[in-house]
């Protein structure tokens, strides 16, 4: 068969050609369209600016207040990153301990499940009452929001090594430590990253709400003050930075995941797409 015949009988290249431009432009065009729609709606329907400001105003006023917004972004980001990092480091060892200890599985495990079901935010007023308006109560709230999903995913991760691999390891006579390093830990990583990513998404949520409840700085505080002063333009500007913060944290974890477990099926699919 000649090459020409192959191309002719296969409609895929033509389809690919028609949509090739969309790979680069579809997403930016969509967001541009969305903002144009928002901008024009505010004018067309004469929506009062103190209710919904147009994006152009949000950008202009936000830019004017950018030093303060950046400072608050730094504060909220700091709370989120510190709380998340501590949870990241402590939760996996605890998950591991619970997986392999009968006592912990019947004590700490039900406690962790119960606490995961509790809205951690409900503790925020207590921590603020105990510890004041500073950094510590926010970090603790973020830590609590991040900690339990990572623990529960770690337990799932360490407990679900396939029967075949378990038997294979036993038949080699390898001790628990060697089995853990060579097989159990790498096999658990994909599920551990599920927990990390879930926690990364929720870290900024935790920090923001903790700031709503009691704070004198940070983006949560900034949004509260702006809304109270009937300045939705500034609130929207801060919300934009919160979104960027969340995306940055999630992106960082996703990047680490890509580097640590390029062999996992989730990563393989993504690289093919």
């Amino acid at each position, binding site marked *: 068969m000649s090459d020409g015949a192959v191309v002719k009988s296969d409609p895929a290249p033509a389809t690919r050609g028609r949509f090739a431009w969309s790979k680069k432009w579809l997403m930016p065009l969509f967001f541009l369209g969305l903002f144009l729609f928002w901008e024009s709606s505010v004018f067309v329907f004469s929506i009062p600016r103190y209710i919904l400001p147009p994006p152009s105003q949000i950008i202009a006023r936000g830019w004017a207040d950018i030093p303060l917004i950046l400072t608050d972004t730094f504060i909220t980001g700091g709370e989120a990153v510190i709380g998340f990092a501590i949870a990241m480091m402590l939760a996996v060892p605890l998950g591991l301990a619970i997986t392999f200890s009968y006592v912990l599985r019947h004590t700490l495990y039900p406690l962790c499940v119960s606490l995961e079901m509790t809205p951690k935010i409900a503790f925020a007023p207590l921590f603020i009452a105990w510890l004041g308006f500073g950094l510590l109560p926010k970090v603790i709230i973020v830590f609590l929001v991040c900690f339990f999903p990572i623990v529960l995913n770690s337990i799932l991760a360490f407990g679900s090594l396939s029967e*075949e691999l378990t038997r294979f390891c036993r038949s080699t006579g390898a001790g628990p430590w060697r089995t853990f390093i060579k097989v159990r830990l790498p096999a658990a990583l994909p599920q551990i990253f599920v927990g990390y990513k879930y926690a990364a998404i929720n870290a900024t949520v935790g920090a923001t709400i903790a700031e709503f409840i009691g704070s004198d700085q940070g983006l949560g505080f900034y949004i509260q003050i702006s809304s109270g002063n009937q300045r939705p333009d500034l609130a929207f500007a801060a919300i934009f930075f919160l979104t960027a913060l969340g995306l940055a944290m999630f992106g960082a974890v996703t990047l680490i995941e890509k580097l640590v477990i390029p062999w*996992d099926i989730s990563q393989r699919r993504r690289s093919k797409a």
Partner: protein
Amino acid sequence: MGASIAIRGVAKSFGTGKSRVDAFGPADLDIAPGEFVALLGPSGCGKSTLLLMLAGLLEPSQGEVIADGRQITGPRTDIGIMFQDNTLVPWRSVRGNIDLQLELRSLDPRGYEARIKDLIRTVHLDGFENRAPYELSGGMQQRAAFCQALVHEPQTLLLDEPLGKLDAMTREAIRRDLQSLWMRSKPTVVLVTHSIEEAVQLSTRICVITPRPGRIEKVIEVDLPWPRDLEVRKSAAFVAEVAAIHDIFRRFGVL
């Protein structure tokens, strides 16, 4: 030369009281060093249960398993074991997975270079040493798994339907490789299978196992010439052997 295996009155049941299920036995069997024994039966007949007991990975409810004269009380480490789902890990290459067997045993892979090269050549995986398992076809994965199971030169090879998930053509090709691997160093092999043809082609003896509870119904000596290539498989003796076993299963309502 392989190890000898004997089972004496071995039975296994799961659960207690009303929910008790008798999975296998009681049964007796003697396997001589270097034999290739097939445990042949339909799914759910307890043949995999028996294999796990031979590996020391499952404790018999009754009776004892004896390897080279010693009673088995825990997982045997002098074996190579393979399952229907292979034990290749995705974060290691083919070569890395073969090394894993050695590393788990605190053996230095550098001392096994020649052995590994030879195994890879025998199963026709030359040039794929650095590929990840998921980059290989199912058949090539099982070939790699054979290398993993054999690299430490085990005297006993326990195979739980290693070709069960492969297509007929690939199965055929890998059977041939398995046969030449066995003929070269004559380890003791116990192969769990539900394919009558596979059992007749590969084994010195076949244990016909009937279900509920699993019982060794009959032990058949397979008296056909080696290697059992296409010529042997077309012979009248081979066809008659397959038909005879077919009849046994039909009598028990399995087929």
